[in-house]
């Protein structure tokens, strides 16, 4: 392991704006009266509803399932009555089937939810089954089902589990608060993953701008010989999976490859905590910590929010919008967050933050011609040439963009962030990626 210089080449310094919420305790959100739970909020096959309008459901009861391996069940986050199953927009931008449940306000727990016993008594297979049944998916963004990640093919030798505590997106503090307030759960979750994957080395990487988190985790893991807490330099996108592996293990995931190709499995903080709760309490993933923040919202907070709660309800609980109208509402942080058309969308398992930007902040900056300063190349953590990729993409020359490795772009946005001319670099590269993938799918 590299011990010094825990950073990567490229990347940008971004003002983190975490001060709004980083010292605020996690609080439970008010119970929603109505939830809309998406049946497809993960990477993989969508779930089929296993309830229908009129059914009574309880908290933690399975409401959607799929037979496919790459999928994850969804559970009710309230007790009450299923109203309807309708197609609606979710914050990823997709329109998917959602189960609409009216809460009876009682939060009656489903009988299936009970502790699973100690970690010693559970086999790796049982652990993976528990994680799968709990519907746990990557809560940092892509929403990849956790049990799939933890079941690598036999020929991939995994030697390290990395927990991603970088939380390099500005504004977001959900993971930060979890590390400070529930470090024992994070460490326990890591131990679960280590046992499930059959690995005896675990590392938690945390950016040094969270000294309280590093301290809490060190404290919580002091008796664990196999677990180390590694401070990382503050730089965006430090929390990108492949950057993290490079920084901590000194291994480069090959282009187009996965972490398991270099012997690593990466999990984020919220996911790890959900895994701990699934094993300890038998609790499925139906609620999560969300940071509601930004200059456009009155009282920024860190709330435990039930999956399916409309954004609108939560924003209201944070005092509503500040004076003036909001300019932009994002799911996620300002670097990679998804901008929303409406605040009627429901929270999903991957909603780590809701960021409300003011009109002033959201104003697009005037475009200028590229001055060829080369800064976009300097900051690209994948060492691409954003200026040329973008030029080809804008000209519609997607073959040339592909030849310059457009598909390796991780869409971190560092290039667009840094460009003095405010060129739409990642925006256009994204377009090229879509076209290239569409073309590949057609020819295959």
């Amino acid at each position, binding site marked *: 392991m590299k011990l010094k210089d825990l950073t990567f080449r490229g990347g*940008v310094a*971004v003002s983190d704006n975490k001060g709004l919420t980083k010292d605020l305790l996690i609080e439970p959100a008010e119970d929603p009266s109505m939830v809309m739970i998406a049946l497809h909020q993960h990477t993989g096959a969508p779930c089929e509803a296993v309830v229908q309008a009129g059914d009574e459901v309880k908290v933690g009861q399975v409401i959607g399932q799929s037979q496919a391996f790459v999928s994850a069940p969804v559970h009710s986050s309230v007790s009450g009555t299923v109203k309807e199953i309708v197609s609606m927009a979710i914050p990823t931008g997709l329109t998917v089937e959602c189960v609409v449940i009216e809460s009876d306000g009682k939060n009656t727990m489903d009988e299936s939810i009970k502790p699973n016993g100690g970690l010693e008594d559970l086999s790796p297979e049982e652990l993976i089954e528990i994680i799968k049944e709990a519907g746990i998916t990557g809560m940092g963004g892509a929403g990849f089902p956790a049990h799939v990640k933890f079941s690598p093919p036999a020929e991939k030798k995994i030697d390290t589990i990395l927990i991603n505590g970088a939380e390099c997106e500005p504004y977001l503090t959900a993971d930060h608060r979890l590390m400070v307030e529930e470090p024992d759960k994070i460490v326990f979750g890591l131990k679960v993953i280590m046992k499930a994957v059959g690995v005896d080395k675990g590392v938690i990487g945390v950016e040094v701008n969270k000294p309280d988190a590093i301290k809490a985790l060190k404290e919580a893991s002091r008796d664990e010989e196999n677990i180390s807490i590694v401070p990382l330099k503050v730089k965006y996108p430090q929390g990108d999976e*492949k950057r993290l592996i*490079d920084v901590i293990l000194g291994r*480069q*995931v*090959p*282009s187009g*490859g996965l972490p398991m190709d270099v012997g690593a499995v990466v999990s984020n903080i919220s996911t790890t905590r959900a895994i701990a709760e699934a094993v300890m309490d038998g609790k499925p993933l139906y609620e999560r910590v969300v940071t509601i923040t930004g200059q456009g919202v009155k009282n920024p907070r860190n709330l435990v929010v039930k999956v399916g709660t409309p954004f*609108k*309800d939560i924003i*209201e609980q944070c*005092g*509503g*919008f500040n004076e003036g*109208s*909001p*300019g*932009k*509402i994002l799911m996620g942080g*300002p*670097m990679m967050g998804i*901008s*929303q*058309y*409406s*605040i*009627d969308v429901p929270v999903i398992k991957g909603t780590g933050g809701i*960021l409300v930007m003011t009109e002033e*902040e*959201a104003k*697009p*900056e005037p475009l*200028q*011609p*590229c*001055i*060829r*300063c*080369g*800064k976009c*190349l300097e900051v690209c*953590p*994948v*060492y*691409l*040439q954003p200026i040329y990729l973008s030029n080809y993409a804008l000209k519609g020359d997607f073959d040339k963009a592909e030849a*310059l490795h457009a598909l*390796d772009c991780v869409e971190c*946005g560092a290039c*667009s*962030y*840094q*460009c*003095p*001319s*405010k060129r739409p670099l*990642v*925006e256009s590269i*994204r377009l090229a990626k879509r076209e290239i993938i569409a073309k590949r799918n057609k020819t295959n």
Partner: protein
Amino acid sequence: MDSRVASAPRAEEVALENMLLVSSSPHIRSNESVQRIMLDVIIALTPAIIGSVYFFGINALKLILISIASSMFFEAIIQKLFGKPITIDDFSAIITGILIAFNLPASAPWWLPIMGSAFAIIVVKQFFGGLGSNFMNPALAARAMLLTSWPIHMSTFTGTRPDVMSAATPLAIMKFGMSADGTASATVESATSASQAAGAELPTLWNLFIGNNPGAIGETSILLLLIGAAYLIIRQVIDWKIPVAYIGSTLAMLMILGVESQFIPYHILSGGLILGAFYMATDYASSPVTSKGRIVFGIGAGILTAIIRVNGGYPEGVSYSILLMNITVPLIEKLTAPKKFGEVK
């Protein structure tokens, strides 16, 4: 408006939805801007501007101001004619103006910078698409044009004291003052330089360093140019790679070509090498964007500079070297494309 959102009637919700801006990430931008970068370059050039007036007198200031004004004027006029937005507020024309003046002798007539800026802005910059699209450095191209058209005006250098009407640059002295066949050179420029150089003596290195020696008005004070360059590097406006590779390879090549070691400091400290390496070769539009490419570019310019100075007909080789390297930029970039992260070997 706190509670209004949740309890808002349908119509207002629709209004909110229409107000929300939806766009692709990232949703924030750094506070870097083209103006800021250009302003930084102007700030960096300011010590050398002051130095040039100190050493060469009020005529230097006059030339600089005329040059700036005409550059801005031509930029605005041509953009108006082309029906393009007028962008003199990006400050880039000011820099071109300063650099054109910096390449003139203090004795140059007032209209010379006007000719230079017309060529630089209209032909080299705007005909090729404006800011960022010029494949040659406009100021250097202008210098080359002026040198070809008005060689006498461009190479009659005055000393730094007012009583010296014409003087030889240290490079000219090294080239012609010490060689017997100096006067045999073919060009007018070198003939002028050569006749001035005959019998002249080299200034002290200290005078060279602070700028108290004959030369183009902006190139002589190494000290002041380096102060500005340090500022640009600290502000990350320019990359150290081009100037370091450039100066290093000039040095190496001069030695390879057998230049006596006592003259090498003169080569580095006089002529346009420092000005060229830090302020002209680093021009964004006409230098490579790739990291390795910048090193290759610097080395190429260094080798050419040394060869022209030692073997060419001119005492100075910086402008032509950079201009030649400008043309090779697309090729250099192709050959030095960065290897992407995790490239399968």
